[in-house]
């Protein structure tokens, strides 16, 4: 095996990919331009929408106003609630969006309050409408305040302290460091993103340099040269690995820029106080887990590309594998799921869980070694499979 030959194939594929406008669009323009624009746009419109909802006054129909004089006054005094009465068909008005909520007061409400008897209020709103949800929150808050006021009055009448109904306070304190908080936040999202970005980045190049070569008729010129099939496959897999790693790094950079710019625009505090606490050891471990995973995904994609007759066929073969990868990635997002022993032999799933553990600061050597070994062996088998396919004339010259 000649490393010079592998290098020649690798360089040829990398230069070819870099000169392909589609690669540049998917690798650079989409993550570094479109992601931030998308997040800025989403942040901006979300902010505008929220402000509009917060600033608007909720129109509320009050039915049975005469049964609760003090409560009606209390509600009317709320700045962002406008009480209307005498609505003919309040439910229809609510459904049409003319009003945002209905409060129904039963007869003798005030009497029951005075006599310390329990009473029932009914609040109707439309869960599917933002303005109606805002109205529901405002009314609930206002009624809770009114309820507290009545309780205080009753306690005062009976000369009782408010401490009687609040025997103790519960103070909660988060002991997690900001690094751990960041790690947990990243641990949920990052493994999934890494896997999807690796796959998406590798897909186009893998198809182009395998099925694409068949479609363009360039494969024969490679096969009759003095380079071995193994050298061709290794060179091509390395090229796909490099492109997908670069694509993942650019994708993550794009998402980081997007989060920072998007949040800055929207004024969100979601990532305020975030601190990256990844140690050098954790970083090395992440890379150690990443390499066989990228190798495995690249080799599988190269197999699919070689097997397919043309680019179109390769895309249809790869789509179900992409869906499966997304599914395995989603499992890692789900909180509370823990992998057991043998499950760390399942490619993609194992990496995403080990990524998660490392990012959360948990180093389980058993999981790391199992994942690394399993993925390396499977990547090696896939590489051998790809080389075998490259030797099969019925695959190379399928028509």
């Amino acid at each position: 095996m000649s490393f010079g030959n592998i290098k020649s194939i690798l360089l040829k594929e990398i230069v070819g990919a870099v000169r392909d406008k589609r690669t540049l669009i998917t690798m650079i323009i989409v993550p570094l331009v479109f992601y931030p624009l998308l997040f800025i746009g989403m942040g901006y419109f979300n902010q505008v929408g929220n402000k509009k909802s917060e600033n608007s006054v909720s129109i509320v129909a009050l039915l049975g106003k005469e049964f609760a004089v003090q409560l009606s006054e209390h509600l009317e005094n709320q700045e962002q609630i406008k009480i209307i009465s005498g609505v003919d068909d309040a439910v229809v008005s609510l459904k049409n969006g003319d009003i945002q909520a209905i409060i129904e007061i039963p007869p003798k409400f005030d009497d029951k309050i005075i006599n310390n008897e329990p009473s029932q209020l009914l609040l109707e709103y439309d869960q599917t409408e933002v303005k109606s949800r805002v109205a529901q929150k405002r009314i609930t808050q206002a009624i809770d305040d009114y309820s507290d006021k009545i309780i205080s009055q009753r306690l005062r009448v009976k000369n009782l302290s408010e401490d009687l109904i609040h025997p103790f306070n519960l103070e909660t304190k988060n002991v997690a460091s900001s690094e751990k908080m960041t790690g947990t936040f990243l641990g949920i999202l990052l493994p999934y993103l890494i896997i999807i970005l690796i796959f998406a980045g590798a897909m186009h190049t893998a198809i182009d340099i395998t099925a694409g070569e068949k479609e363009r008729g360039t494969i024969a010129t490679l096969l009759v040269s003095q380079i071995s099939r193994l050298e061709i496959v290794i060179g091509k897999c390395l090229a796909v690995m490099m492109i997908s790693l670069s694509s993942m790094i650019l994708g993550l950079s794009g998402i980081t820029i997007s989060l920072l710019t998007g949040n800055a625009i929207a004024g969100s505090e979601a990532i305020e106080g975030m601190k990256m606490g990844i140690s050098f050891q954790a970083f090395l471990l992440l890379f150690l887990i990443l390499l066989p995973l990228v190798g495995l995904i690249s080799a599988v994609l190269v197999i699919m590309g070689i097997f397919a007759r043309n680019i179109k066929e390769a895309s249809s073969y790869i789509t179900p594998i992409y869906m499966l990868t997304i599914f395995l990635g989603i499992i890692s997002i789900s909180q509370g799921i823990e992998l057991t022993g043998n499950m760390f032999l399942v490619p993609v799933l194992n990496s995403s869980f080990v990524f998660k553990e490392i990012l959360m600061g948990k180093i389980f050597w058993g999981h790391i070694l199992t994942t690394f070994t399993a993925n390396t062996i499977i990547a090696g088998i896939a590489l051998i499979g790809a080389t075998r396919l490259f030797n099969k004339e019925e695959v190379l010259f399928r028509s």
Partner: protein
Amino acid sequence: MIQVDQLTKVFQDKKRGKIIAVNHLKFNCQKGKIYGLLGPNGAGKTTTLRILATMMIPTSGKASINGYDVVKNSSKVREQIGFLSGETGLYDRFTPRETLRFFGKINGMDNQQIDKKMDEMFQALEMEHFKDVRVGKLSTGMKQKLSIARCILHNPSVLILDEPTVGLDIMTARTVTDYVKSFKDDGKCVIYSTHIMREAEKLCDKIGIIHHGRLLAQGTLACLKKEFSLEDLEDIFFKLIERENHLR
């Protein structure tokens, strides 16, 4: 030289069953000669040439290039051969200079050898003005010149040319056939498949007429004319094809 003995290739097709693409073919071609493999589409020409170029393995029979068996010594065979087909097999995103450097390297040449050979070929094939233009922007004629350069860059002694003029305009086709003649003058052994009678008449020292994988007749043009008492290669060709179809 090329030696082919009882070469057979059978494909298994799910729908059509067993297909004998090449059926006990036997011929040879010497140094400084052009052997023309003449036949209609689907005759087995491309399969034969793919076996000779080590891209396919024969079902039975033998073939050797300069004494090296195409199955047992495939890597040695690949050192001896240059392969050219109608499909240019070039990378659109590379320039001719980059293309030749790449193929030179994977054919075991060092940078000095590649540079020297490239300069020679850019001059000989009049490629100077487009040597740094990407292949995707070149005309068909320019591409075929580059394909010729790619094929002979590592100075192979045997050239396997699979319908190299198919789909080319008359001017480009002429450029290709002129080069094929020059290969012969350089002492190379050339096997040339075609279905164009005129090309076979003009270029080939020996012609083998192939149909349904079988070699129906072979010999020099003069011998074939004498054998079939016909003056025109096309008439000889059709007579053989009709006879073969009648027998089947």
